[in-house]
């Protein structure tokens, strides 16, 4: 079980969070079809540090960006997401 440091709530049990996607999988709404196919369907899937978006679903509800090692589960960075809220700060779904 991982302990994930929420930027707002501090370290909380992994079960309070849900994994959403890797950072490179965020699809801009104006992507061309080729870009969209690449963003939707091509993954580095690294065995090592990976930038991921998670949500503190069963806590404060915020989104966060983690840098997490996919083999050791070591979390080297957590930052609020989006970094500076555009508009009302809701994360584009």
């Amino acid at each position, binding site marked *: 079980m*991982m302990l994930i440091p929420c930027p707002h709530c501090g370290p909380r049990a992994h079960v309070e969070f*849900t*994994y959403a996607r890797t950072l490179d999988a965020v699809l801009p709404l104006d992507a061309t079809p080729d870009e969209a196919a690449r963003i939707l369907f091509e993954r580095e*899937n690294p065995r090592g540090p990976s930038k991921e978006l998670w949500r503190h679903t069963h806590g404060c509800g915020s989104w966060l960006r983690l840098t997490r090692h996919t083999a050791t589960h070591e979390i080297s960075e957590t930052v609020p997401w989006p970094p500076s809220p555009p508009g009302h700060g809701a994360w584009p779904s």
Partner: protein
Amino acid sequence: MKRFSALALLRAGLDGQTRWPRHWRDPEPARRYDIVVIGGGGHGLATAYYLARVHGVKSVAVLEKAWIGGGNTGRNTTIVRSNYRQPQLQRLLEFSLKTWETLGDELNFNLMFSQRGVLFLGHSDADMVSLAERGDSLRCAGIDAELMSRDEVARLAPCLEVSRDARHPIVGGLIQKRGGTARHDAVAWGFARAADALGVDVIQNCEVTGFAMTGGRVTGVKTSRGEIGADRVGICVAGASGVVAGLAGLKLPIESHLLQAFVSEPVKPMLDTVILSQSIHAYVSQSDKGEMVVGGDPDHYPTYSQRGSPHRIEEVAAQAIALIPALSRLRMLRCWAGTTDMSFDGSPIIAPTPVDGLYLNGGWCYGGFKATPGSGRLYAHLLATGASHEIAAPFSLDRFARGATIDEAGAGPAPQAR
């Protein structure tokens, strides 16, 4: 290769079973092969066997970074069935199931393939409607499926909790009687032994660390035991698909997640079919040793750790106990996890890659054991001829960009939603 038979066993019994020879060689890697298969799991070994037996390819090696069958082949819960909904998957898995039915004789190896039936439980009228639909579609495709009433389910598996006020009331079920289980290790060993006898080099402790390329074409592999040349290279590494394909600069529609399972202490026979469910996520069977084998959902985030979280075990155990209350009295012996290559439509990929000479068999998610012989047959066809077999053709790598995904769960490119 010394053949197994009742007489051979009896004879060997006279001198205490001490004179059995090695069942496959431990060869040094040669400088080159016609075809190199990366990954000594069931799929890789089956591929090599069919390359030699069906396609007469003489020079084949399987390269395994550790020991054969130590990956998901040795970690899965051994369920074999073909009762899927998507027609492409029905064709693929029924092809495989038919192969299972005669495989033990063909390999002269006891795979303990047991067609004890695979029963999907329905817990509501809505569940029964989707089970009935699934059954109709299967029978149209010539695959066996029988709808069962609650009483029939209770007679088949008396250990199930069928009372009306159960946590997960049972309304009925859908059974595939030709489904069942097989001994997972034996599948790796049986294919390895038969492939070896046909001249395939099964090379363990040989990790692929890179590809040799000339003019954009793969000409061999770099390994922990030196460079090995090959005309064609087939990736077949399950959970490591992304890492190995990455060595050739490829990015796949795959994320590696983990799936756990656990077994109890062995008990007398109490369940002689496989129990799955239309709407809850625990599934249960009993191994021939008597252990109760229990599995559930993946852990739902990318990981190569092969180490699961206890909360999933707790959730799966709670559901399993609700289905079979007697399980609450059993001690669990072991739990483990395997890295599963979760593809972005939940279906496998058996296809050429954009790199010349390099092929991919992967993306089997948490359900590839049942496909082992069929996948081996179809991948061997691809590697030997360079063209996809008609059954494998829909499982191409470009189906995602073309919008031709084969999505049994309708979940889209989100492995954590499967």
